[in-house]
């Protein structure tokens, strides 16, 4: 019986990959453990090994093919004595799933490539020349452009240089800027964050990458006590122009210690700026603003957004101002606020709501500190209803802050109590079904919007 070799999922967030190279040819015998092919994933180049003995009967997906969805048959291995010709007739090469947008979070079906929408709509406000690229490329370009512009900018973190970034965000930077400015650190978050703060005090502009913000807890003291407070404590004498960046929020099936949204933790602290963009253009423009900013900036990215493609402006001088929200979608009946990956879910929810005759306005908050109260208040004055969405826990979260702000600023304009959609108040579970229950889903947002709209 022939065995199908399927495109493997080689990382928790991988939905597709590229067949970089076949190391075996059709008709060649293979043994378990032989390397069949090299696959380029969203993070790295990996090898696919044979698990059975036999003959490589057919290569279904040729070398060089990109966007091959996970679980797509890429080759057939004939069992010993099986006829190769018979197999060829059975095999039909499925098309790589390149543009199959589906709304659900990959978290719920981690092995299916069809879960991650590939195209993010281009943002209306950018009208200049743009290139379609992934969020990870947009981040890399932002850093590269700023490093070209300012010699004091450098990148520091685990695996940022030779490995090219744990999530491939810093790809090519070592090659362009060398080891003086792209620096691999030991696994020592508290230490290298403090080192970055010291370098910033001395007038350099470090970009400190956390492999994920979960590890930044080790460095919390340096971020809060040293980076955020020193300007104030020094009567304005000292400056700490530093960016702490990396993926934040809930990834896919990595459980409680690697899945948490820290937005409200950092947003609590005066002396920090906190940015959590969604679109590729905003990732680039806001990271450039963060690097140029004279203050410490927490730049929250999202692992599940890194691979999304959208139009990103080419202009190296295009900087998106920190502190301004973006109206991602105009609407009349309900305001939905979101940031980071939740913007995508809010947009999908708005489409669903449309079908029910509810016109939702989606606000991409983009920056959480300083908070753009004005944009939210103006929206609520129009819609008179508001739903907040975040991945983080509800207690003392961004939604809670917004609820208080609405009481203070928009009480007379509200026709319904604010409704929060947030991560469930539990450490994130591993099991796929439980994880899905813990993380906000499109239907949760739809339900909340209907509730405040009384429809």
């Amino acid at each position: 019986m022939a065995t199908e070799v399927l495109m493997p999922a080689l990382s928790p967030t991988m939905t597709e990959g590229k067949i970089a190279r076949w190391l075996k040819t059709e008709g060649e015998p293979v043994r378990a453990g032989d390397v069949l092919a090299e696959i380029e994933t969203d993070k790295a180049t990996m090898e696919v090994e044979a698990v059975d003995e036999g003959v490589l009967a057919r290569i279904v997906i040729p070398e060089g093919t990109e966007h091959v969805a996970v679980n797509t048959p890429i080759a057939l291995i004939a069992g010993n004595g099986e006829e190769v010709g018979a197999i060829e007739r059975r095999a039909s090469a499925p098309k790589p799933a390149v543009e199959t947008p589906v709304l659900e979070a990959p978290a719920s079906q981690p092995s299916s490539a069809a879960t991650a929408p590939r195209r993010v709509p281009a943002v209306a406000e950018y009208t200049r020349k743009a290139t379609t690229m992934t969020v990870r490329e947009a981040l890399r370009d932002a850093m590269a452009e700023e490093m070209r512009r300012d010699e004091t900018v450098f990148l520091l973190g685990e695996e940022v240089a030779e490995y090219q970034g744990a999530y491939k965000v810093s790809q090519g930077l070592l090659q362009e800027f060398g080891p003086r400015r792209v620096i691999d650190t030991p696994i020592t978050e508290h230490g290298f964050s403090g080192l970055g703060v010291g370098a910033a005090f001395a007038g350099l502009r470090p970009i400190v990458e956390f492999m994920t913000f979960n590890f930044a807890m080790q460095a919390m003291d340096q971020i809060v006590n040293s980076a955020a407070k020193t300007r104030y404590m020094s009567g304005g004498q000292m400056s700490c122009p530093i960016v702490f960046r990396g993926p934040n929020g809930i990834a896919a099936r990595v459980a409680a210690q690697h899945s948490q949204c820290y937005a409200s933790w950092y947003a609590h602290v005066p002396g920090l700026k906190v940015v959590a963009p969604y679109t590729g253009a905003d990732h680039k423009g806001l990271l450039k603003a963060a690097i140029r900013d004279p203050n410490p900036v927490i730049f929250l990215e999202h692992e599940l957004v890194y691979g999304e493609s959208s139009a990103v402006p080419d202009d190296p001088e295009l900087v998106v101002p920190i502190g301004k929200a973006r109206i991602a979608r105009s609407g009349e009946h309900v305001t939905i606020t979101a940031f980071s990956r939740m913007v995508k879910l809010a947009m999908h929810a708005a489409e669903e709501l449309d079908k029910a005759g509810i016109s939702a306005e989606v606000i991409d908050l983009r920056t959480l500190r300083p908070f753009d109260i004005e944009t939210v208040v103006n929206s609520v004055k129009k819609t008179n209803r508001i739903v907040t969405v975040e991945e983080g826990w509800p207690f003392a979260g961004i939604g809670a802050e917004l609820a208080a702000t609405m009481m203070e600023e928009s009480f007379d304009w509200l026709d319904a109590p604010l409704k929060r959609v947030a991560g469930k108040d539990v450490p994130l579970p591993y099991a796929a079904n439980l994880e899905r229950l813990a993380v906000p889903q499109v239907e949760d947002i739809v339900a909340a919007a209907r509730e405040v709209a009384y429809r």
Partner: protein
Amino acid sequence: MAVKRKPDPVKFAELGVSATALFRYYRDMLLIRRFEERAGQMYGMGLIGGFCHLYIGQEAVVVGIQSVLREGDSIVTSYRDHGHMLGSGMDPKGVMAELTGRRGGYSHGKGGSMHMFSREKNFFGGHGIVGAQVPIGTGLAFAHRYRGNGRICVTYLGDGAINQGQVYESFNMAALWKLPVVYVIENNRYGMGTSIDRASARTDLFHRGRAYGIPGEQVDGMNVLAVYEAGLAASEHARSGQGPIILEMMTYRYRGHSMSDPAKYRTRDEVNRMRTEHDPIEHLRRRLLEDGTSESRLKEIEGEVRNLVAEAAQFAQDSPEPDPAELWTDVLAEA
């Protein structure tokens, strides 16, 4: 790699220390002593609030190290920082006015005793969290190396900080990248109320960089000339691109951990013995007199110091409190 320096230094001339330099050490140590005594007094009068950690007894460390630094070298320490500020040439008026929380203070009254800075003098604080200044100082050294400017950073820490994890994270990076940093451990034998032998598995702290290949040396921190000599060698080591080095200064604080500490964890005898037998200022004074310096020359210095401290105390009381509008300034810089 790690050596114990003999406690008593050779003759001044052999060290290449000029008479002028000796008078300056005497003046600088005395200034710190008198300043701190006055600060203690003003604390008792309610003019200074919060935590106030006095440097009395440890003066030789800062003054000896400061004398080997060059223009552009940077300094960072923890919260027992008044001596470091005066030693780096900051104005006693501005320091004292910060202690009283007044407009004329280095941080305009917003930092207090533990959080003061001077960009002009390359003094980078004044940090309130035990051990946090160590990665920061390592980062200051990183910046020197990044710029290739030949400067070094002196990072002070106490025997209390030496068991913090981030200290070793810093040692590792400093050694890995050969950063120009001198770690000066001021071992005054007590981390607040806990004596070193109750807190540290091994009490000779100059060994603490051994795992990273960082050389270390134990120095008589009550003798400014021994500090000078060790500091000079250490600064040259760091400056020459050989990476970090550790100096463990054996010193002693006469006062409690902070103003509110009755220091019941040690005997009166122990304190008196240190004061009478090892006082750094008395030690230098005796040496100067033995070397033929006149009493009147020393009196002259003492008079100058007395005036400086009196002026500082007056300024710190006369300077107005910060404008209420200052509450909201300096949180963020204009982008």
